[in-house]
């Protein structure tokens, strides 16, 4: 039976983890490689790096991080943030990323999704959808949530499936950072509309939120950042809790 996945996400800026796990045995709390290794040893089903490096001159740092991590972690590695072109994707894959997530570029230039999924296969193309509720609908935001495109998120999700995305990483901008739980309605709507897996993101504050994302939001995978940081919960704890709640997980 296929298991639901738990994906810890690390924000990386200029090659360093911005928030992170605060374990006593951690030699360097800012080292993304070491943190990723802790997650994968703890049973993370995948690892996600979100590169939030603002300046272009420091952009190269993420390649080095990916290269080092992929030599240490033997679970899938997804990298997103600032991915604009097919060449960006090619470079990340060559460094050892297994999947690349595309956000702003997928909205502005869907041809990137078409071309890259043809060239590298849909399996490594994740389209990241940042959506915010507006009345009864959700609208797509780009540039790390700063720009409202006015595009309907549900329709866009369907379009991305048809365009060649292998998975959708859906983040609720309303919930992101709030720790009040995923936007279940948004997850469930998108999940019922598309036939590709949906990864729920944005708003996790406790382990029940992970359960809800899967049970109510019908997500195939749940992504979380802050609950795994500072040792609040370990990935292992999260999996044991999901197992207790009857959700199939890899233990």
């Amino acid at each position, binding site marked *: *039976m*296929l*298991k*639901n*996945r738990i994906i810890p996400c690390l924000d990386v800026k200029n090659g360093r983890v911005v928030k992170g796990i605060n374990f006593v045995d951690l030699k360097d709390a800012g080292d993304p490689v070491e943190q990723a290794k802790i997650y*994968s040893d703890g049973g993370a*089903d995948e690892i996600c790096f979100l590169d939030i490096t603002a300046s272009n001159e420091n952009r190269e740092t993420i390649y080095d991080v990916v290269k080092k991590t*992929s*030599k240490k972690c*033997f*679970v*899938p590695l997804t990298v997103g943030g600032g991915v604009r072109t097919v060449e960006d994707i090619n470079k990340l*894959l*060559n*460094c*050892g*990323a*297994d999947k690349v997530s595309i956000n702003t570029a997928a909205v502005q230039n869907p041809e990137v999704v078409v071309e890259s999924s*043809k*060239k*590298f*296969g*849909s*399996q*490594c193309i994740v389209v990241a959808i940042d959506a915010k509720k507006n009345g009864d609908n959700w609208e797509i935001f780009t540039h790390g949530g700063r720009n409202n495109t006015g595009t309907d998120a549900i329709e866009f999700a369907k379009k991305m499936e048809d365009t060649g995305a*292998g*998975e959708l990483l859906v983040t609720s901008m309303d919930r992101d950072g709030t720790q009040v739980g995923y936007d279940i309605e948004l997850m469930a709507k998108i999940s019922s509309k598309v*036939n*590709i*897996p949906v990864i729920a993101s944005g708003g996790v504050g406790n382990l029940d939120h992970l359960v809800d994302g899967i049970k109510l939001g019908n997500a*195939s*995978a749940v992504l979380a950042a802050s609950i795994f940081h500072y040792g609040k919960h370990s990935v292992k704890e999260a999996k044991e809790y999901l197992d207790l709640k009857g959700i199939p997980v*890899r233990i």
Partner: protein
Amino acid sequence: MNVTIVDYNSGNISSVINSFSEVANEKVNIEVTSDLNKIKSSDKIVLPGQGSFKSCVDALNNINGLVDTLNEFVINDKKPLLGICVGLQMFADVGYEETETKGLGWISGKVLKIDNQDGKYKLPHIGWNQINIVKDSKIFKNIENNSHMYFVHSYEFVPEDKNVVSATTEYSSNIVCSVEKENIFGTQFHPEKSDKTGLKIIDNFINL
């Protein structure tokens, strides 16, 4: 011993390279190449494959003499080969992804789209699934039945002779996820991304 990972522009092979390098001890030399002479003289071959069946077959054919060299290695010399993902699928006579495409024909059978039962099953089949070992396979030495492996695929290999099947996984139906026919080994899942159990399978292949 020389183990060659065939580099034929089949998509991203860095994870395969990293995992084999991780497992290999000092007596094992891991080569990544499309050089026909190096392939011929190696002891074992790894045939990765990402993207579509058609794109991988096209990529093999784009390298002059590569298919002949692989045939010689596998069929005449009977040296061990491990196909991963589309690398395994290409063992078939024919695949139907994008368009009907002739495979290598090493193990009779077809590669068909997984039946998603009217949307009941999401495709691609992505994530960790358990394998049901149905036959003793040398690459499953010390691998427990029902171990979790990492999958990413929408198509499945349906061999004519079920005796070649060494493991299946349940997704919509019992999907063939590993085969062994004499010196030919293949996994539909990605051992290079399946954590310690996956690395053990790679280790088993290297130590055949």
